[in-house]
């Protein structure tokens, strides 16, 4: 229903002539643009680059974030000393760091990965720390009474007890990593989806630009739905009592 309204409104706007025809192309042109994008091998080459950057960013930023969050959540001392810094730095736009990252990592994919990783790191630190604090303390006492080593407690208690909130954290982290990578590509790059969008914009090829945007939005939404689904299933598997 909402989709029909949206598409109808768009088409009405396109045909009304009130706006510049190329800014709001009619649905037919849009569909053609989308098709051109999907059928274009250079798009897939760019998508592969951006996808690789995104994957590396989520892996690096995610693992560092989860590890830092585990440490903050499990230790009162560390959390008292450092957690406020993460809380303060968390919402600042990471793109201001991009010039620094270029200096460190160069103009190639590495700086985009770094951009995405930095973006993804902060929400994961905070959501992991919160999740760790939510672990039932008696389960930790059980692990202690069986003389579990610290790494065993992390692998066999903390991680399984926090899968659901962690997956939600990854979902948040994935979103901001995607923003980070694409933003970095639009700023300074000669490859990747962000670069392709800017190129289409520069050529004023609006159908192509919209086509690219639709693909990106669709991809992000699909990953989000999948992670949300996984998180809900994990909640079912780790909740204590039958519902």
């Amino acid at each position: 229903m909402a989709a029909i309204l949206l598409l109808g409104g768009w088409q009405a706007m396109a045909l009304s002539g009130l706006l510049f025809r190329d800014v709001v192309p009619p649905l037919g042109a849009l569909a053609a643009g989308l098709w051109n994008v999907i059928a274009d091998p250079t798009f897939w080459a760019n998508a592969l680059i951006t996808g690789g950057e995104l994957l590396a960013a989520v892996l690096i930023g995610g693992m560092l974030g989860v590890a830092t969050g585990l440490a903050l959540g499990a230790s009162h001392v560390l959390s008292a000393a450092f957690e406020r810094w993460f809380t303060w730095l968390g919402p600042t736009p990471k793109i201001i760091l991009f010039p620094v990252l270029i200096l460190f990592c160069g103009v190639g994919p590495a700086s985009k990965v770094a951009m995405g990783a930095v973006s993804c790191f902060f929400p994961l630190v905070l959501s992991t720390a919160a999740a760790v604090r939510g672990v039932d303390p008696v389960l930790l006492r059980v692990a202690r009474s069986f003389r579990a080593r610290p790494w065993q407690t992390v692998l066999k208690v903390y991680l399984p007890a926090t899968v659901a909130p962690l997956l939600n954290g990854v979902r948040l982290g994935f979103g901001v990593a995607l923003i980070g990578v694409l933003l970095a590509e639009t700023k300074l790059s000669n490859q990747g989806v962000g670069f392709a969008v800017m190129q289409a914009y520069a050529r004023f090829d609006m159908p192509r630009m919209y086509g690219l945007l639709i693909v990106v939005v669709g991809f992000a939404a699909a990953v989000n739905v999948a992670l949300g689904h996984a998180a809900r299933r994990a909640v079912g598997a780790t909740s204590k009592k039958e519902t």
Partner: protein
Amino acid sequence: MLSVANVTMRFGTPADGVTAVDDVSFDIRPGEFVSIIGPSGCGKSTLFNIVAGLQPATSGQVSVEGAAVRGPHPAVGTVFQEESCFPWRSVIDNVAFPLELAGMPRGERHDQARHFIELVGLRGFERRLPSELSGGMRQRVCIARTLAAKPRLLLMDEPFAALDEQTRLLLGDKVLQIQQTLRQTTLLITHSITEAVQLSDRVLVMTYRPGRLKRFVTIDLPRPRTAEVVTSPEFGAAVASLWADLREEASRGMAEAGG
């Protein structure tokens, strides 16, 4: 086996603090089943944490088989009052947890876990998740998990506190059976007189705040015992005698809490 010598536990500052456990000493011999009973707030659970090595005492010493307890001792197994199954692990993987920590291969640890699952009467439930079991069954999983680590001293902190009366009696019966099969040295913390009398060789009565030992009562009921033991006159006499001791402490606790 277990020796507790002059253990004292204070919380807060020396000037303004609470003495939870005051100069408690006792011993447990191998194979013995001892209960500690006392009103709420008498420091039973504090004493339990100290013996389990989860909390250091302010002063005094706990030793197991002659070695001082500084942190969880490998010969001591602990069953907690709270629900403590890992909710994401099946029954068999919960029970095999201590063996998994020890690095035992999967097949072997499952074989051993099966033995203890059978011992607590949960055969057929190996693959179930804790959320699919009743509260009493979950507590039996926890008991089996602790037994799987083959402790020489079993510590239980009100393991039946969260259960209804019928389940408690049946579970008590189960614990008796297990005790008789394994000759397991056990220290049980409880606030239930019947539970203490039904299961124990000796019962230690604690006073209300500060927690001191008031009396050591030997329970002379013949073994093996079953749930039917609760109907015998000797059982009634032992319960009455303990209740006389405990009533005094419990009413002191209530008066203090009320005033």
